[in-house]
């Protein structure tokens, strides 16, 4: 049974992929391996998880302002997320995806959650589907 997420679309698009939920903000610069998309920030609770081709759901972005350069590289190499959903408005995903259009990288959907991240019923194997501006959670 699909659940429509209460999310404000910043970049519309189309995708369907497994969800990866992070419980703490992520630094794309220095916190993610650009080649594999693995979280290498040793302080991060999801250290070792791989963001490649996932719908990345996270509380926010932290750390270096060079995050867009790192995220652009991930997206261009195919080791980046399929879509980004943050719990608060963050400039990094929006700016990076808008910039990636200059490189003819297919724009990845970006949205901000209007509801509390920790209240959402995410489970192992869940998928998210984006159709235009609508974000749907498909539980496993």
């Amino acid at each position, binding site marked *: 049974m699909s659940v429509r997420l209460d999310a404000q679309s910043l970049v519309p698009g189309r995708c369907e992929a497994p969800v990866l939920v992070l419980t703490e903000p992520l630094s794309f610069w220095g916190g993610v391996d650009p080649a594999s998309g693995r979280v290498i920030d040793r302080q991060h609770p999801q250290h070792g998880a791989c963001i490649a081709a996932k719908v990345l759901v996270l509380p926010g972005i932290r750390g270096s302002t060079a*995050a867009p350069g790192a995220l652009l590289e991930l997206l261009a190499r195919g080791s980046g997320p399929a879509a980004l959903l943050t719990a608060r408005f963050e400039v990094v995903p929006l700016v990076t995806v808008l910039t990636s259009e200059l490189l003819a990288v297919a724009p990845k959907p970006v949205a901000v959650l209007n509801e509390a991240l920790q209240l959402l019923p995410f489970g192992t194997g869940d998928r998210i589907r984006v159709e235009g501006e609508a974000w749907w959670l498909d539980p496993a």
Partner: protein
Amino acid sequence: MRLSEYDQECLAGQRGKAARFALSLLRKVGEASGADQLIDVTRAHLVGAYDAGAANDELLDRLARLEAKVRIPTTLNASSACLAVHAPGDKGEQDRARGVVDRYVAMGCRPTLTCAPYHLVDAPEPGECIAWSESNAVVYANSVLGARTNHTVQFLDLCAALTGRIPRAGLYCTERRLATLEVDVRVLQDERLRAEGGFALLGLWLGRAVPAQAIPLLSGLPEDTTRDELRALGAAAAAAGSLAMFHALGLTPEAPDRETATGGRRVEQQPVTVEMLEQVASGFTAPIGARLAAVCLGTPHSSLEELRWLADALELAGHTLRIPLFVSTSRHVMALADAEDLPARLRAQRTTLLTDTCTYYGQVVPGLAGTVMTDSAKWAWYGGNNLPVQPVLAGRERCVASALAGRVVAPEAGGP
């Protein structure tokens, strides 16, 4: 969102294709962030002048083909290699870094290559709206200089430079600069804690403990707190969290008193204890006597005062270093230091001086591995992730003593 005549000319392509791309991006970001308009910025500081990979190079090449030129004075952040003549390090990495810097210079940027743009001769004035990236510079500009900037992330910084515009949101708005909570930090009046890198630890704690977008008012700091100590605090907090501004009661320009700093609102009070700071430090320690591979200072780039202190401290010791001591600074501060003969004195003590870059980039010090001591919480944070090292955080006195001994020495007798 209200657009000026100039904004509309940019969007219509009358100011060139690069300005059209840049203004279109600024407009979308402004709308998403709830800005009512775009405003002028007087200068920009860009974070992208390092080797970030092929896609980043390609992006700059595309912008060059759109005849991109910066419209306001624009400085460049530290790069991924030391570009000085005869610099140590990987030649291929130096060539790639130089290639990126050259692309930005072709757009009209100044190759300052420093994470400490506030050390340049023309530092921003209080109240000046600027578009700075580099998290430590943003905290310093807002908190210590009283200038106004958000964390202008990469590419947004470039769009600001190409147009001289930025969405009016966040810290550009007077009411958003008021303190939102007060943290009693009188614990730092303990001289031993202060000497053991207490300001860096406090910054790490703040970065983790304070909610995103919070602006803490720090009360109870020592009256003789230096700008370099506030800088170490802000750099640590920005690396560990998202802090963009703090007030230090009686010390920073927008906090002459509690009433001014908070706008007269009651804010939540929170104390910091020695135990909290020890807890933060526990991730960055090593046993006394442990062998060290190197000591790294100068993150963010050393000030002239810090280089003077280091030259004096090393000469006082009376013997040379047992392990490499790396010190990073800007080419600007290096030129000032040169006029005082500091680089020659430091090199006589076998210090390795680097400009334009930071030792926590992978290729700057080839083979850097093992236990590395630093006085910088920012270095400890990023070095631990970027390099195969175990970072140890200590005050600068202990960093120098440990570099001389080649091992982790104990804090001064009776210290924490």
